């Protein structure tokens, strides 16, 4: 990481990094993370445009635009925008370019970091932590915080400075090379494996259906136990893929939940569960 910042520059960047944790401050559906982004940019804007109120107004308006991405690349884009605002003051970049780069980076970075942090790292951290906490071990909580919490701040720090130093040419290179799609796919492999493992361990359909096939005493058979001895956790996997199919058909999670409550209550009433 380049350390050839001037003292005043370093102070501004440190402040911006701290502010870049305010992603969800005053979040609204209208502009999403715009307020957080404006606050993150404020140390740099105040420094650059302290003698030019008109330019300041324009710059603030730029960063009050709708903005939405994952919390980690939020810092990366803020670093990049800070570098571009500096170039804007020198007349090398126009304001519309800054807005366009921000808008162009939102979607791809959100997708990529959701798959890395939300669908992969969080699922792994939770999987490990749940195993420990089920036995009442507080260590699970600490591991979850270290794996899923602190890592975000570390990634934010590295990416914020990377964004500030790399500039926009690098972005074109990375986004056109196809590496992003590959990274997303490989995070998906790990995420799917963890989800598969946790489905086997946790999705529990407490089938308690007893069928008396022979009619004789002691001929009663517990269907759930038989299925589990042949194919452990089959019911959970089948239920999961039925729900995946329903989601692909456009079902909302709340509809699935209502369906489950209905099935569970009716099932309990007729003694299946």
């Amino acid at each position, binding site marked *: 990481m380049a350390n050839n910042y001037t003292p005043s520059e370093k102070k501004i960047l440190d402040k911006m990094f701290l502010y870049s944790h305010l992603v969800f401050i005053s979040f609204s559906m209208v502009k999403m993370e715009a307020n957080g982004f404006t606050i993150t940019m404020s140390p740099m804007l105040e420094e650059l445009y302290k003698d030019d109120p008109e330019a300041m107004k324009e710059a603030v308006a730029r960063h009050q635009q709708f903005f939405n991405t994952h919390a980690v690349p939020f810092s990366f884009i803020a670093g990049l925008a800070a570098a571009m605002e500096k170039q804007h003051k020198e007349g090398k970049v126009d304001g519309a370019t800054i807005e366009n780069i921000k808008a162009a980076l939102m979607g791809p970075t959100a997708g990529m970091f959701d798959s890395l942090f939300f669908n992969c790292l969080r699922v792994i951290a939770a999987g490990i932590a749940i195993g420990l906490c089920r036995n009442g071990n507080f260590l699970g909580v600490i591991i979850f915080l270290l794996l899923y919490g602190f890592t975000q701040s570390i990634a934010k720090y590295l990416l914020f400075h990377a964004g500030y130093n790399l500039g926009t040419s690098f972005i074109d290179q990375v986004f056109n090379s196809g590496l992003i799609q590959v990274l997303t796919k490989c995070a998906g492999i790990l995420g799917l494996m963890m989800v598969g493992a946790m489905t086997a361990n946790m999705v529990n*359909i407490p089938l308690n259906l007893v069928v008396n096939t022979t009619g004789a005493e002691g001929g009663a058979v517990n269907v759930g136990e038989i299925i589990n001895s042949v194919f452990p956790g089959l019911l959970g996997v089948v239920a999961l893929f039925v729900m995946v199919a329903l989601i692909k058909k456009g079902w909302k999670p709340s509809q699935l939940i209502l369906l489950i409550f209905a099935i569970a209550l009716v099932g309990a009433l007729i003694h299946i*569960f």
Partner: protein
Amino acid sequence: MVGAALKICIVYFLFAYGDEILLSWQCLTRPIVIAPFIGLVLGDMGTGIKMGAELEAIFMGISAIGGVIAADATLSTVIAVAYTILNGTPMTDGLALAFPIGTVLTSINSLTMSLISNPLAAYWEDLAARDLKAFKVQNFLFAAVMKIIPSLIIFVAVAFGIEGLSKLLASLPPFVMTGLGAASGMMIGVGFAILTSMIWDGEIGIFFFVGYVMAAYMHLDTVAIAILGAAIAITMFFSYKRNIDLKNELLAAGVNANNAAAGEEDFF
């Protein structure tokens, strides 16, 4: 009850404001982190830790769909843990209740969002252009108010709702609690189904079953599966990357060859 409610409401506020607003990790408000601390202030941390694990599984994927949240994981967790510990009921009852309660409380959250947060967007834009310092201060205050609202709802729910709730549940026929218990086991599946449908891709879908077999048949624990999974993912990444590098090299070489040919034609 009022004293307990006050403690819970303070823990909720500190976690929700500190994490979502000041850290943006969305990590301390997860059930697995907040449940032990609710347990701690109510004098039964063990139950908090164990319920946190179950609730984390239930809410694993629920909050994953952007914008539309079916049930607020944090509010559900706080109420479910408080109900279990304060009433001394079995954990399964609290878990069965988490979802119905969470769904009701979530609607309050989306109500404050559309009634208060959304109309303010124009105000913020105007203020930011006029006075950046005031903009910052007011953002911090406003975000605190937005977390105080659900904190107060928790306070009222725990202080005055829990006794009524347990009376109501006692009057229900027994199959209802059996049904709700069965539902909470299956509810975990909803979260995993949402996650699966987000990640699923024909080319890598088979790895779901690899993870499944490792857990169900080989009885490996989660850390072991994570390490094996990481090994596969890293190997796949470098093999894909080699393909891309090769493609780019070929492209570059091809472009050069074309240029060279064009140059020769010009020369002759």
